[in-house]
């Protein structure tokens, strides 16, 4: 009985999460049109529902983050203006990007990975690899 209730509650939350991601997507498109790729990335990383186990939510969020990541041209500038609290989340998404095998995505992710590691250190990589609870 309890498991069922939890499941239903999770269902409602999923819809709320998907709506939020769609919201984010529109906001990011606007920011990109205004040539603000760094703000777009921050918006994409903010409020990522890491605890959910639903693949659709994760994929939806990944698509949004991917769009923002590919739009970054000045990697150094982006890293220096990103808040440290986003380092770990960004690193997790970079690994997801590297896992796609898609050439342009991998090139971009690798470029950002290099700079992020310089800034955030090896601890950041460790946290993204070892965290099996909050996944992207």
């Amino acid at each position, binding site marked *: 009985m309890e498991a069922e209730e939890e499941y239903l509650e999770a269902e409602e939350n999923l819809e709320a999460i998907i709506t939020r991601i769609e919201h984010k997507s529109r906001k990011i498109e606007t920011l990109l049109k205004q040539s603000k790729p760094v703000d777009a990335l921050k918006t994409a990383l903010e409020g990522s529902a890491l605890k959910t186990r639903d693949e659709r939510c994760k994929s939806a969020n990944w698509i949004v983050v991917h769009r923002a990541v590919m739009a970054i041209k000045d990697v150094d500038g982006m890293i220096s203006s990103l808040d440290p609290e986003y380092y*770990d989340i960004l690193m997790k998404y970079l690994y997801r990007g590297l896992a796609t095998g898609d050439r342009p995505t991998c090139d971009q992710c*690798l470029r950002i*990975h*290099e700079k992020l*590691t*310089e800034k*955030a*250190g*090896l*601890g*950041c990589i*460790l*946290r993204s690899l*070892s*965290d*099996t*609870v*909050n996944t992207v």
Partner: protein
Amino acid sequence: MAAVAVHQFAECITCHAWSPDQSMVAFCPNNSEVHIYKLFGEKWEKMHVLSKHDQIVCGIDWSLKSNKLVTVSHDRNSYVWSQEGTEWVPTLVILRLNRAALCVQWSPKENKFAVGSGAKSICICYYEQENNWWVSKLIRKRHESSVTNVAWHPDNILLATTSTDGKCRVFSTYIKGVDSKESESSSSDLKFGEQIAQLDLSVTWAFGVRWSPSGSILAYAGHNSMIHFIDDVKSNPSAQSIPLRDLPLRDLLFLSDRVVVGVGFDCNPMIFTADDTGLWSFTKFLDQRKAAPSSSRGSQLSEAFGKLYGTSKQVPSNDTVEPSKTRGGAHENCITCIVPLWKRGNTTLCRFSTSGLDGKVVIWELDIPK
């Protein structure tokens, strides 16, 4: 440079402990023996080799008042060694484990010792005078995986443990006849094996749990490069988790209620301090390296990253010569064990020793601001 002395004893050291007068050091050189060395002037001489265990000795503790050595091994046994004349006489302690023992520590009053094991249990051993042997009582509940470290609270009753299930737990080890009823502890806490608290801060393996000297703060390291500090575990726990910049820690030591030293895979002790409000933060690395921090990763790591990024990474010239891991610091490999060295009469700790997989024992000394 805060490292006062560096001694290369073996290829690799699993764990070490010092004698009460700090003239002798006992360590396991990654085999089933315990070697005891004594310092004569400037030279170390091998005094004794204790070889009763069948497998690697993974925990050694030397009691400061009663001068007894306790060793635990992967062979599921434990021996308490007493020095009689020039010989060390072992007493077998039957732990009743079906998996390896992983760590051991004498309690503050040295009437008990705790053993963490891979059998997801802890053994609390105490001496029974009538039968002249050590009895082991097991705490089998609660742990979901191997117990990596144990730490005694100054009150001799509470025991904190860290485990590979990522959690840190606090248990009561009150034993009737061994422990006297203290007026401060409430009677409900006194049941043996009762879990007082469980901390879920880490999702990865947890190591190196320690209590502060006053017993009010608990600290442990997570394998995801984080260190956790918990204030007031018993009644109103408040936690602080600090993400580390580099590699994870394996062991910790409280120098005072405000200063913690962490050691681990960075091969360099890290100092953490708490400010007046109790907020902890990373202060500095203890060892000064010859190379600048950003290029001190060593040629192996730079090369690896170079291959990853597909460019020929500019390797600093001082690294290209040696493929070995020497980075100019005292330790060359992971530091796995940190032991306090109390100076007679001092109330604050400012000396400690570390041992690691490089086979070195390094003694460090610091000036701790009051």
